[in-house]
């Protein structure tokens, strides 16, 4: 199966690989896994006090499409509000990377990682307000 040029570009030069401080109250972490292939993905976002995503990092262990999907979303996330981030759909990721049907689950994984990271930051914010 041939990867698209965009997948290859992200795979060979992944953007924003790494981690942020998970104990930072402004950092949300999303971890997800794809049971069909054993891929694991960790996405971390740093959110300013007014709800804008300032930084995003990822670590993905999986196939080229999973790495490309997570690399792409870290680019998309910067500058977005957490609500805009939450609204990102896997179909948009799959379309941008021209993923074939058998690799659609990689884009699902990336969407779920965003949702998990947003849920984590919202939980942290709620805990901060409750304190």
């Amino acid at each position: 199966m041939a990867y698209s040029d965009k997948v290859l570009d992200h795979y060979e030069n992944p953007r924003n690989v790494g981690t942020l401080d998970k104990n930072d109250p402004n950092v949300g972490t999303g971890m997800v896994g794809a049971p069909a292939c054993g891929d694991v993905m960790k996405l971390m976002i740093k959110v300013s006090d007014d709800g804008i995503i300032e930084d995003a990092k990822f670590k993905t262990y999986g196939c080229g499409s999973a790495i490309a999907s997570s690399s792409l979303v870290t680019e998309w996330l910067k500058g977005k509000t957490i609500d805009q981030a939450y609204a990102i759909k896997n179909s948009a990721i799959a379309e941008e990377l021209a993923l074939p049907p058998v690799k659609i689950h990689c884009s699902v994984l990336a969407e779920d990682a965003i949702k998990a990271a947003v849920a984590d930051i919202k939980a942290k914010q709620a805990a901060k307000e409750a304190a």
Partner: protein
Amino acid sequence: MSLNYFQLFDLPETFALALSTLETPYRRIQASAHPDRFVSATPTEQRQSMQLATLANEAFLTLKNPAKRAEYLLGLKGIDSLNDSNTSMPADFLMQQMEWREALEDASMAKDTASLEGLFDEMQAEGNRLTTVLTDLIDHKKDYPAASETTRKLVFIDKVCADIQQAIERLD
């Protein structure tokens, strides 16, 4: 009517399965369906024997591997344990996966074969532990949702094992 893989090998539909009880019926079918025996047979018989040999191969490979066997057995019970849309594994399990993956990455970069082998042994032990858990969940407790989650974990462990093996081979 088509036989399922267990029926094909005349085995009980249980998760617990000794490799030897799988090999005997597999070899018997492969011998009976061998192309050499069908040299002068009709095209239909040749095709049927080839289909049988292919089916036996698929069945053997599926039942031999614990994760695939569990997935197949749960599938017979109507449960799709490896559904793509199910990405929410337990957080502590994913955390552990990340740690193992990072250890694998570090050891590969450092060309540290001993660490890779140690990690491989740790993974094998975890795989064996999950296999024991699966026997209990499927054959005894018949707790299929829990078995489904354990099967997913085993798929992740198998993937790490395969990647460690690849890393070791690259260093050899």
